[in-house]
């Protein structure tokens, strides 16, 4: 890259040439990440909008679909993500205090949690695949329980809409997890190489922001997809 010879000697290697000082650089990075998270809210927002409307229209099918997903796996996965958020938060703290080994350990644990989440998610999807609950030609939801107070059969067509949203939402969330794990692999590598210090830990911090955001999306997906209606059948 074209670093200027005029300014390059005034600052450490982590400060990019066009910033006045490290604070400006860190503020810019943090604002950039928050703005990016705002776009992510709107990105998932489009799906939440579809969810809201179809849930309003086809509540029974949504409730029935929700009952058919394994709530235990869902709860465990929520817990796994919350634990990973904790390790990320502690990781940022370790970076702030310059504890390199602790940082690397915490980042690695986070990655493990992330992989565990994806694994459990995979199990859940596999179940749905086995049960023919994947939208498409082989879709068959005749085994679904009706919600207690609703009458009649589940409308198979409407049930497909629930599962379409389920797969789209959890799928894109999982994609974000995969990207997050990728980012954390990089962070771990550079943390191990000792690039981060109490003076410069911005990448850890904004990587952490991203991870927490993905966690928050899941915090909403969990009740919206798993907990629509779990009341005991009358």
């Amino acid at each position, binding site marked *: 890259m074209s670093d200027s010879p005029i300014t390059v000697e005034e600052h450490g290697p982590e400060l990019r040439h066009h910033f006045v000082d490290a604070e400006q650089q860190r503020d810019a990075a943090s604002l950039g990440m928050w703005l990016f998270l705002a776009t992510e809210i709107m990105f998932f927002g489009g799906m939440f909008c579809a969810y809201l409307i179809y849930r309003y229209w*086809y509540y*029974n099918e949504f409730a029935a679909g929700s009952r058919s997903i394994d709530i235990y796996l869902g709860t465990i996965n929520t817990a796994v993500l919350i634990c990973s958020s904790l390790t990320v938060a502690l990781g940022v703290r370790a970076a702030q205090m310059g504890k390199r080994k602790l940082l690397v350990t915490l980042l690695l644990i986070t990655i493990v949690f992330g992989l565990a989440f994806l694994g459990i998610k995979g199990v859940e999807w596999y179940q749905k695949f086995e049960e023919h609950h994947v939208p498409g030609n082989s879709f068959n939801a005749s085994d679904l329980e009706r919600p207690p*107070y*609703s*009458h*009649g*059969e*589940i*409308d198979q*067509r*409407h049930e497909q809409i629930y599962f379409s949203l389920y797969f789209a939402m959890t799928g894109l969330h999982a994609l974000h997890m995969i990207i997050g794990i990728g980012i954390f692999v990089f962070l771990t590598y550079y943390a191990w190489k000792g690039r981060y210090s109490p003076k410069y830990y911005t990448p850890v911090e904004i990587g952490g922001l991203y991870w927490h955001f993905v966690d928050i999306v899941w915090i909403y997906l969990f009740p919206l997809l798993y907990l629509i209606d779990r009341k005991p059948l009358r």
Partner: protein
Amino acid sequence: MFDNFPLWPIRASTGAGNVDALFIFLLALSALMCAAIFAMILVFATKYRRRAGVKAEQIEGSSALEITWSVIPMAIFMVIFAWGAVIYFHERTPPRDASEVYVVAKQWMWKLQHQEGPREINELHVPVGRDVKLIMTSQDVIHSFYVPAFRIKQDVLPGRYTTAWFRATRPGVYHLFCSQYCGTMHSGMIGQVTVMEPAQYEAWLAGGITAGSLAASGDSLFQQLGCSTCHRFDVQGRGPNLVGLFGHPVHLEDGRTVIADENYIRQCILSPHTNIPSGFKPIMPVFQGLVSEEQLTALVAYIKSLSPPPAGGQGGISLAPKPQYPKE
């Protein structure tokens, strides 16, 4: 003036005049605005063109002016909005006693069926002076029913009914366009609306091959599909009695109350378990995929015919909005 080069569309419905009046008002308003702005630019550009030794005068701005030229346009906009809204309201609320034409759109043709029975393809015959309500659905993609001479347009959607209405005022043959892009022959999905004097129209009706009215074919379908075994008119059957259903509120099992309109009846036939009326069991078979759109319209027309027409037909067309359904 120019036979081959018309500059204004023909007005052939009661609504067309309203739309044209508003359009001309807006046109005049816009012309005035454009003239004022362009004149000012021209005057300033000549009067204040750069000359040696003359400097521009720095003017900071004026809040009073800014507020004036925000508030006055806003007030004018509200007039336009209100006027347009009244016309739109009128366009979207068909008179209750309008005669009905069922329209099924598909790539790339219009299939129309009159209440009285005649079917037409890409052609619609209507008499002068009668309110005609179009109840439309699509078999495939979104289409749009557009008759420029009547100034009406309504998208035709798959999976539900949309409606439009008009009252023709002038005999003639007018374009019917599909105005929502629908695939290869979108531009070929055109037809014509023939407006006739009432006497001629009666003759046309009589001359056509009469397959019986739409409701009558709905009736035979009703028997054929076995609907009548449960939906009985003499005694309470396993299904609700459908006499007097249309246009009236229905209490549903889940506590909601809906008005039984065309879309409700449609949904009840295709997907009966979504809207179970209170007190009935979900035993009706699903007809999704078993009846065609045309059969569906016949059934809907038949069930509608079981409700007595409203007392006292609607007289002249007024711009005053009329509620589509009586409040119970």
